[in-house]
């Protein structure tokens, strides 16, 4: 198997003496930093922490479902488990994951900027994120919340005596964290690009984060107001969603899904960006149809705002609007498919190598495609009425979000690890982890399509015995998956001390981020770069290498 890794001579190589990590010392220098790279690391730690918290609840849910009877915990405890799982995973992991960590770290570097436009606001958004996390943890300590992550009214406002208001506050704050991140990214992309970095020379990672930011900025405030109204309804009894006062619970759904459907694209778009970077690097090719891939991000962002009611087909929207929303939903599939096809073409025409990030990309493409196709099933009115609120939906969104986003996140972490830390991760064990993750994933979620199709509803602690085999498979898979997620924790930590020195450009890639030292300086660039090429100009790179070879010969 060929590989493109080029490491400096290991006997003499050392990390650069001055870099952003050792620029300042002490805990306070981290907690008060305005450096986007350090903030990215702060995010990375905290997001990983919450990912495993969310994972713990997932484990509890799967454990309960091992047997048909609701025997491990009481039904309301079970409700709290899946609610916490959903809330933590969506608001504290998926939404911020790639933008707040990899985006924060690389977006400024990729466009040749010294930092994001508003470094202090960037730090503030990390603090907001942490405050949100503390609220969610507090809810837990107080006894949890059991509305499901969707807070559906009037269930959440009237019938459940759990800590909806505390959680709602947490999510409101988390919302501001992502609004500020989005705002920062948009301004940075518009105003901070280096000379020569035109819109069509932007790396696709920047495009996709830009599109996701637009969604964050426009969608999140609507969620915020919906959540405020729920909290007010619970605490002081205003009646905007309360049917006994003439309010309409459906209004909540409209407001909620107006954010939450675009939110699935907030979660997945930055992942698309990672995939584009990795695919082009490991196929030594410009991404096929660069412009189409760039614009499809924008198209997804725009269409994403017009399909929310497909979450409400069975909740009393009129037949006419259901039909329109069904059609619009199908339309969103188009730009996503464009991306998949373009990545496939890029690979077909390039010379592929199989480093770890690339393995995750294969995982991503396979799983996301399945998830997306089943989304089209759900988007068609007739099918949805039958499949909604079953495990089929659960499998669908786990295929897109876990199979899609999480694979992309891991691909990105491995891809940029050498740049962030200056050291390589160990290749063998990381490939092993990628394969374990993939197998674990299929084993966990594929049975859920089947069991959902057979009619098992979501959100119940007990189920008829005939579904047990599939559930046991799923729980076993979750265990494997858990191992797959734990492995990187260990070997990445190991690599911090023992990993091979990476040098500035181990993948022989073209992006601006690979032209500065690893780990970078606090100011990223000693001189402002002037960009003269389009992104992913591997032909230029190959020619240059040829010339050098001749020179040597």
């Amino acid at each position, binding site marked *: 198997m060929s590989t493109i890794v080029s490491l400096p001579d290991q006997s003499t190589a050392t990390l650069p003496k001055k870099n952003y990590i050792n620029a300042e010392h002490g805990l306070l220098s981290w907690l008060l930093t305005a450096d986007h790279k350090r903030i990215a690391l702060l995010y990375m730690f905290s997001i990983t922490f919450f990912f495993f918290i969310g994972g713990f609840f997932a484990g509890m849910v799967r454990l309960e479902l091992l047997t048909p009877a609701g025997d491990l915990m009481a039904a309301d405890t079970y409700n709290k488990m899946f609610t916490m799982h959903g809330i933590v995973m969506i608001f504290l992991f998926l939404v911020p994951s790639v933008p707040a960590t990899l985006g924060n770290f690389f977006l400024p570097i990729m466009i040749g900027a010294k*930092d994001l436009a508003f470094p202090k606001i960037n730090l503030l958004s990390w603090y907001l994120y942490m405050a949100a996390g503390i609220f969610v943890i507090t809810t837990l300590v107080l006894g949890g919340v059991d509305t499901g992550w969707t807070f559906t009214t009037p269930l959440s406002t009237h019938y459940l005596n759990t800590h909806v208001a505390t959680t709602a506050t947490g999510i409101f704050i988390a919302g501001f964290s992502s*609004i500020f991140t989005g705002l920062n990214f*948009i301004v940075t992309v*518009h*105003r901070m690009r280096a000379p020569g970095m035109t819109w069509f020379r932007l790396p696709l990672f920047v495009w996709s984060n830009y599109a996701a930011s637009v969604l964050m900025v426009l969608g999140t405030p609507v969620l915020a107001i919906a959540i*405020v109204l729920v909290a007010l309804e619970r605490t002081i009894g205003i009646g905007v969603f309360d049917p006994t*006062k*003439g309010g309409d619970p459906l209004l909540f759904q409209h407001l909620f899904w107006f954010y939450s459907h675009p939110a699935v694209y907030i979660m997945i778009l930055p992942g698309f960006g990672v995939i584009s970077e990795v695919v082009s690097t490991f196929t030594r090719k410009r991404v096929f149809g660069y412009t189409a891939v760039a614009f499809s991000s924008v198209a997804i962002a725009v269409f994403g705002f017009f399909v929310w009611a497909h979450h409400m087909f069975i909740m009393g929207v009129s037949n006419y609007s259901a039909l329109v929303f069904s059609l619009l939903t199908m339309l969103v599939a188009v730009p996503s498919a464009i991306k998949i096809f373009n990545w496939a073409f890029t690979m077909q025409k390039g010379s592929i190598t199989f480093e770890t990030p690339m393995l995750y990309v294969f995982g991503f493409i396979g799983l996301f495609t399945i998830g997306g196709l089943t989304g089209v099933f759900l988007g068609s009115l007739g099918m949805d009425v039958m499949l909604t609120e079953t495990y089929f939906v659960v499998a669908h969104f786990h295929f897109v979000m876990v199979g899609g986003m999480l694979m992309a996140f891991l691909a990105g972490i491995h891809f940029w690890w050498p740049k962030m830390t200056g050291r390589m991760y160990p290749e063998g064990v990381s490939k092993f982890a990628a394969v374990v993750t993939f197998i674990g994933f299929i084993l966990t979620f594929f049975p859920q399509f089947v069991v959902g199709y057979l009619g098992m509803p979501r959100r119940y602690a007990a189920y008829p015995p005939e579904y047990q085999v599939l559930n046991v498979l799923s729980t076993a898979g979750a265990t494997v998956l858990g191992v797959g997620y734990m492995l990187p924790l260990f070997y990445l930590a190991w690599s911090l001390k023992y990993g091979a020195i990476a040098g500035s450009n181990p993948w022989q890639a073209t992006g601006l981020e690979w032209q500065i030292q690893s780990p970078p300086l606090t100011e990223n660039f000693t*001189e402002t770069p002037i960009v003269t090429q389009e992104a992913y100009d591997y032909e230029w790179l190959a020619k240059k290498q040829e010339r050098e070879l001749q020179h040597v010969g």
Partner: protein
Amino acid sequence: MSIASTITHPPEPEIHPSHDVHEHPFYQKHHFETAEQQREAASFGMWLFLLTEIMFFGGLFFAYLLYRNWYYEAFVSASNSLNMPLGLINTIVLISSSFTMAMGVWSAEIRNKKYLQISLIATIVLGFVFLGIKTVEYHDKFVEHHVPGASFDIKDFVNPPKDSLEKPLTVDMANKTQIYFSLYFAMTGVHALHMIIGIAILFVLLWKARTGLYTTGYVQPIENFGLYWHFVDIVWIFLFPFLYLINRH
């Protein structure tokens, strides 16, 4: 041996020194190339933030329009129970404060410290007047049992006082006035919260303006705050007719 593994040098960075860097004004942050770039970024950021505010209030206006359509009679009656003259006075107060704030921005631009301070103080005073009047209105609603919740009372709408022009509502419709008041308090409450935050920031600006910071050419915080303040006023310009003037007789 594959070609790549013999190449140990990364591609040469396409990095050139950027040409002559001028003296930086003291307020220019290190990561901006020019003060102009910094100013543009800040004002662009502010506009985007206001866009998120529009979406935020948009949710409330959407709810308002929906219910007003459904329960028009209840909305008219409830709206007529508001104190229109006070609302009108407040509208005038806010427009004046927008004017004094605009004066503040202008004073910063012509670098006149005294005018700037006066304008900021005037804006603060007008802000407090607005909040004061709002408190009076809230208090009235409280006394009349028009605050949604346990003590809400619909009798004013079912049996309007003899001398008023109000049409009596059916009990069912009268109940819907509660939604109107829910929205009234939510919308004006969120608006008032924006004012309170604004006044707090004004105090900070005033305090820093005293040191002469904003009359050195560094006008961007004043400019940006001006945008915020005008936005909050504009929201009120929509709230006033929507809430107070639905169907005046």
